[in-house]
């Protein structure tokens, strides 16, 4: 099992925004998280990305308890990457952005270059490698953010509303890309989306979140 959560809650200023009795997420599958605004999708993704810690409950990743020590968090974060709903690119070129995750891992320049090229080609942004990241459009920014995440070849890719605020052409590119990453690189993907159709099309399982709890889980390959 990739993730295993028990009695997981997250409270902000006295308001419980997430309350999961039990959650299991399998390796190499695509999970769609659907639900209205405020259902707890982003909160759950932040917990799964180890960027936030639960108020109560237990989270296990690949059979190990998450203990939230500095050392363990760094190790876990280097296996899981979250692409934000409104991704932000660092000041500098597209190349520098995609290079970041590799650089912080101490990967040599010689080994970095082909991985950056490959990631940019995967999202169809190779011609923009020297472009200033802040000058890109919304759709291009999302694609570069995906390339930046993919360059580090994560075990798990978490995407918060990957198709929100982008035109139909870019939506299609992103959806096909996620499908390809999962089938070719065996990357586990969890995506939060407003669109049930996107989840049905891509996901192996669709989890519906309402008021911080999972109201239903559908196996899309059976249904």
């Amino acid at each position, binding site marked *: 099992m990739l993730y295993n959560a028990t009695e997981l809650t997250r409270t902000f200023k006295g308001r419980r925004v997430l309350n999961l009795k039990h959650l299991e997420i399998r390796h190499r599958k695509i999970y769609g998280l659907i639900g209205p605004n405020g259902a707890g999708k982003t909160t759950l993704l932040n917990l799964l*990305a180890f*960027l936030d810690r639960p108020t109560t409950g237990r989270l296990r990743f690949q059979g190990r308890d998450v203990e939230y020590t*500095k050392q363990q968090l*760094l190790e876990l*974060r*280097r296996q*899981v*990457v*979250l692409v*934000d709903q*409104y*991704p*932000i690119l*660092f*000041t500098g070129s597209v190349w520098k952005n995609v290079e*970041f*995750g590799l650089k*912080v*891992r101490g990967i040599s320049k010689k080994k970095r270059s082909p991985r950056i090229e490959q990631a940019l080609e995967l999202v169809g942004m190779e011609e923009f490698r020297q472009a*200033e990241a*802040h*000058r890109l459009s919304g759709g291009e920014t999302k694609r570069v953010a995906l390339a*930046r*995440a993919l360059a*580090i070849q994560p075990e798990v890719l978490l995407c918060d509303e990957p198709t929100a605020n982008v035109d139909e052409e870019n939506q299609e590119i992103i959806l096909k890309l996620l499908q390809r990453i999962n089938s070719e690189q065996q990357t586990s993907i969890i995506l939060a989306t407003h669109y049930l159709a996107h989840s049905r099309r891509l996901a192996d399982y669709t989890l519906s979140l309402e008021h911080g709890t999972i109201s239903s889980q559908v196996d899309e390959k059976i249904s």
Partner: protein
Amino acid sequence: MSLLLDSLQSAVLLLFSMDPELLNIVGVSLKVSGTSTLIASMAGIPCGFIIAHSGFYGKRLVLTCLNTLLAMPTVVIGLLVYAFISRRALFGELGLLYTQKAMVIGQVILIMPLVTSLTIAAISRIDDRYRKTALTLGATPLQMALVIVHEARYGIGAAVIAAFGRVIAEVGISMMLGGNAKGFTRTMTTAMALEYDKGEFVLAVALGLTLMTIAFGVNMLFHFFQGKTGIDAL
């Protein structure tokens, strides 16, 4: 009016003649102010980052204290440091009084709150998504901090320039702790005050012009780098 024009004319001639006394005064000013700005930046920028990024009990009080220290008159700092380094004081044996080191100590105390406060303001303006993105991409806390500092570099640069401007133009600390000794601790501002007392305006005006030119030059340099590195240029 003619006094001002005559002084200006003589001052320009003095500047172009590269008068050794004038050069020495400018050199001492730049050395002392540059050193104190460097030390205050090395301490103030990390302090500002830590304060901006951590939520500790009493943070508001710390911010209020920092803002209060911004208004501290230079003569008060001069007096305070004097109380510690004068001959019979706690650190009297170190022989710091009326040296450039004493001036640097006083100036660091003067601008450290300024660098810290402006760094806090610059860091606080940076979108939290930079922190989150750096962490999710596998950055260590130090690497994440460097990302934030890089994104806030213009704000931090402005803080350093403001601090340099503050120390190069101050008189109180330099006069009280440096003693205005010719060739050793005489800075542009203390020399200007002295020349004014003597009724000699030429050197005072020349130094004033130099001071303004240095301030203009530093700001131009800052804007040049800002413009060269991209979209944040004014």
